[in-house]
């Protein structure tokens, strides 16, 4: 079976991201896809470098190194995941702050009058 291309990996990651974050996806739509694309490219780069090393020991890197680099990629995926969640929350927090500001302004005089 041929190895999946970076584009195929990227499409799968995008679909998973949209599915996981649902309606909140728009808050992180600029950040996450760019990072998913980098991951997809890097995963194929690792596979290519391990293959190059097998042909010529002065090129690419060993399978052992490739395995650690894949672990690094998994860690980077977690970073993106946590950051994406945080970006969602920042968007919600900002919306809440803006809403609270309007409400405070609107109801301040009214509350003062009825109390």
């Amino acid at each position, binding site marked *: 079976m041929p190895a999946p291309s970076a584009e195929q990996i990227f499409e799968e990651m995008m679909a*998973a991201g949209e*599915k*996981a*974050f*649902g309606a*909140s996806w728009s808050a992180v739509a600029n*950040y996450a896809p760019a*990072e998913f694309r*980098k*991951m997809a490219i*890097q995963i194929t*780069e*690792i596979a290519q*470098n391990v293959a*190059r090393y097998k042909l010529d020991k*002065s*090129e*690419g*890197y*060993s399978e*052992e*190194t490739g395995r*650690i*680099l894949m*672990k*690094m*990629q998994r*860690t*980077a995926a*977690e*970073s*993106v*995941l*946590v*950051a994406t*969640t*945080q*970006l*969602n*929350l*920042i968007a*919600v*927090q900002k919306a*809440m702050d803006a*809403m*609270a500001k309007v*409400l*405070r302004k609107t*109801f301040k005089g*009214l*509350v003062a009058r*009825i*109390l």
Partner: protein
Amino acid sequence: MRTLLLAFVVLLGGCPAPLVSPYDEVIEKGVVDFYERLNVFVKDMGDAAGKPEGTYEANTKTYNALEAKLDVLILRASSASQGTGCRLEAKVYEKVAKVLDNDMPADMKASAKDGAGDANGCNARLLQLVRQQLGFIREIHAKTDKCASPPGQQVSCLRKATSETALKIANQSINAVSVVEAAKRN
């Protein structure tokens, strides 16, 4: 009516627990500084692969210094979170766990299970992940990458190709910290 209105104003205008930790200039600047140092170091190691100055043994002090810099930032973020960890929003956690076939990192699973964790904990987690990346680069340099060095010896090194791939991946984790802090600042 009066009570209802008062409750409404208190709820939205009061001081509920923030969803995200406040912007921290020290962390943002510290991460930028770490990014610069790591990038220069790893590129230099790629260039010095196979030379005495490119071996792991010749560079342990630099790794120690980079780790110490990150540890200071992690300590700062951890003290703000009181060690409760990072908890993903329940709904997001459920969906992500499903997508990842329940292959979630152990500490996130624990935080989700016991309901612990806060926004500051996620800051600390992001920095810990950067620390992990540095540990992986160190492991490759010390153990798995080998370069030919005259006369016919194999020495520890960071191969050029490794340094390029490792840096791109590590920068994703560093970038994650920067992006979050920048979003808080703006």
